[in-house]
């Protein structure tokens, strides 16, 4: 197992390096660079200014030279400087990544906690009224656009009833007396975005859990377990659910890998200080340093979560072993 993990980790690092170069190169192919974007917004920029800025930003160098210079800085722990926001990337992205993680993690946890019992119950009682009802809600949840739901939630809870904030991350200018007060304040701002994000994923998860569980419950060994007189709980949880876990691990691992990518629409609708819109804007503005860090985080999360999923398969199903 140790050798397997080490091998996979080495592969992961190589893949990250290759993908990072590809992303960097592809970004250089996009029309316009940070200096050209400045020219558009300021007709007074002279050709001397352009030459000076290109040299300062290394834009007069070939893509591979710039990439290696960027990679060298990253290796030394310097994430670079945002040319758009004119602050170090670390300071710009750090708080936003944390906020995005908090929002996405709570939304994911909420989705799982709700989807698991409903999905399993539906699978155990297929064709029942509850199953139909759960399926109806799942499809409804999947179909509702999150930005639209977000706006409806704002109108109901913020504008009409005034019980929840319409947007933001925390109450501005308030010194919290205790950690608990701070958590309570942050929680208030999370309720609506979490609902908006979770509704869709609950629907998706319920559908996956239901089908995976139904598949597992149709196996011969379940019939054997029942015939042996095992209790329903043991049949469902020890034999059924454990076998349904393999596809679910894949889905959850992929969902976890998106925790830092940001939910651009939800974050924008709720003016939530997350990383989603920042990444979009940095790509559009050719803000290489910010965009590259977000690419690296996304790629690393996908690769590491896949590695984790592969390891978890072995725990979920003893027949899977790594040598």
């Amino acid at each position, binding site marked *: 197992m140790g050798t397997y993990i080490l091998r996979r980790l080495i592969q992961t690092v190589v893949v990250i390096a290759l993908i990072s170069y590809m992303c960097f190169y592809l970004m250089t192919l996009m029309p316009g660079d940070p200096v050209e974007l400045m020219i558009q917004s300021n007709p007074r920029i002279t050709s001397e200014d352009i030459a000076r800025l290109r040299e300062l930003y290394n834009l007069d160098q070939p893509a591979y030279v710039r990439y290696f210079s960027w990679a060298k800085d990253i290796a030394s722990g310097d994430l670079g400087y945002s040319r758009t926001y*004119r602050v170090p990337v670390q300071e710009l992205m750090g708080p936003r990544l944390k906020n995005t993680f908090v929002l996405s993690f709570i939304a994911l946890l909420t989705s799982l906690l709700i989807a698991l019992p409903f999905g399993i119950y539906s699978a155990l009682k297929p064709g029942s009224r509850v199953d139909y009802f759960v399926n109806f809600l799942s499809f409804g949840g999947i179909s509702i656009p999150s930005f639209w739901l977000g706006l409806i939630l704002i109108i109901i809870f913020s504008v009409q009833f005034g019980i929840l904030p319409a947007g933001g991350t925390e109450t501005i200018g308030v010194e919290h007396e205790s950690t608990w007060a701070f958590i309570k304040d942050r929680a208030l701002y999370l309720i609506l975005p979490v609902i908006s994000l979770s509704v869709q994923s609950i629907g998706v998860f319920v559908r996956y859990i239901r089908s995976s569980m139904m598949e597992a419950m149709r196996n011969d060994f379940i019939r054997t377990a029942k015939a042996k007189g095992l209790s329903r709980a043991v049949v469902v949880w020890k034999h059924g659910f454990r076998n349904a876990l393999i596809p679910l691990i894949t889905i959850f691992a992929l969902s976890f890998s998106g925790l830092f990518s940001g939910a651009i629409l939800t974050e924008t609708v709720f003016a939530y200080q997350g990383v989603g819109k920042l990444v979009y804007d940095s790509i559009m503005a050719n803000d290489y340093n910010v965009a590259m860090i977000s690419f690296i985080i996304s790629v690393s999360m996908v690769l590491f979560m896949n590695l984790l999923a592969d390891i978890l398969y072995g725990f979920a199903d003893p027949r899977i072993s790594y040598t």
Partner: protein
Amino acid sequence: MTIARTLLSVVVSIGMAGSAFAKATNNELKIGISQEFDSLNPILSSMVASSYIRYIVNRRLTNLDSKSKWQAQITKELPTTENGLAKIVTVDGKKKIVTQWEIKESVKWGDGTPLTCDDIIFSRTVALSNNVSIPEREVYEQIEKIEVDPKNPKKCTFTYQNAIWNHVNQLGTFYLLPKHLEESVFNKYKDQKEGYEKNSNYTKNPTNPGLYNGPYVVSELKLGDHISMVPNKHFYGEAPKIKRIIIKLIPNTGTLEANLRSGTIDKISVLGLTFDQAISLEKKIKTESADFTVVFEPSAVHEHIDLNLDNPILKDIKVRKALATAIDKEQLVKSLFEGKQPASLHFITPKDPWYTDDPKSVTTYRYSKRQAAKILDEAGWKEDKDGYRYKEGKKLSLNFMTTAGNKTREAVQVYLQNQWKQVGIEIIIKNEPGRVFFGETTKKRRFDMAMYAWVANPENNPRSTLHSEMISSEKNGWSGQNYPGFKNPRMDKIIEEMDGEFNPKKRIELAAEMQKIYTDEIPVLPLYYRTDNAVIPKNMKNFKIPGHQFSETNDVERWTME
């Protein structure tokens, strides 16, 4: 995204009816903006939202007021040749201008340190460093030297490289840095690329009051979320009335209204609602008698269509004149903008002292389908059975481009396409995302007709857009903005003369001649001036949208709630 926005607007409209409004007070004013802001370092920040904030916390040597008149801001008086504070001297056969400035006695940084000429000299030094990524430094470069009066640190003499008449206007964008806080950072990092900006106090410690000299200082800053400002105890001018101003970033313009109605914000800045959203909100506010007012003000942003003069069809002035004559601009602004965005005659705005609509100085093109058809006939473009015009077997067909996804521009395009079709011109709409349109298409002049906007600031010599040397090309690093490729020796001469003309009356005459050439040769089809809008609480007083490059926040200390 357009469908999504429409859907949002509909939902907001339905859901808003009957919601409650909270009255804003002088204790706190929460302003919503939809655009991100960057570092608050005044010489470095380039985002519009940062300028909005910058004028709340910083003041400059000169300022353009809401009546488009230049005023001394932190200084006692504007130097002019009449008051003797500006003199033209000849050094080694070269004419230069020397100006005397005196900073008001009471002007201090937010920590109580007096603001002196040393701060001005230091700011120029930083701006001219090759390791600082200031976007354009012409303002700083034009000054050859600044000398401080040994008897009075608040008095200094500026010697310019050349004798330029607009030295006062230029200083409107000469931003000041506090030497007592920033000098040590600059000296430590000045040899590193971008070293100063990475380590500046504006980046590392933006709530230090000593960084600001305006009516407010920053008390809290979260990039991408909000900025909080409180009155500056050492401000030299009128004491601010509002005890705290919060600027909240709400990136989705569709939810700005919901935030306003729920009390999350009290005001929507000019960097908030789109024009159509503002129009729709104004109607709702009137119907509901809500406690807000939507303020509109024509701005210096001029929406126009560049015609590529290298295009064989558009090279013919008759075709250009026919295009202009076939547009009913008055109807366009009436039907699409309810008359709130005024039609334009040329690139100079009515607020500009150079503006003229005198028929002797401006060639106007009165809407006439018949006249447009006649001009095209004369140019050899004859109408065929399919309703379009042809010349030597070639169809009169032009590509019409703009930024994709801009609802207003797309509506204007369809309107114009229909008008030009009526005189037999085929218009093919071919829109592109902003970064491709500006990053490639306009810059490399790969268009027939391109619709976009320029900011036409008062008394601005249009060198970059109309001088023949500014035709964007590979040779000049694609730096010019003369995208139509307009070449007129007289126009070049006027632009050059304008820089050295100290007589305001003569400048107005030159500007009139400029407008005559521009409207005669029509390298560009002027369309309309965009209108700025803001939503303010009904009880807010002394608020004014200036409609030029300097923000509404220039008068922030006078804002009050009654």
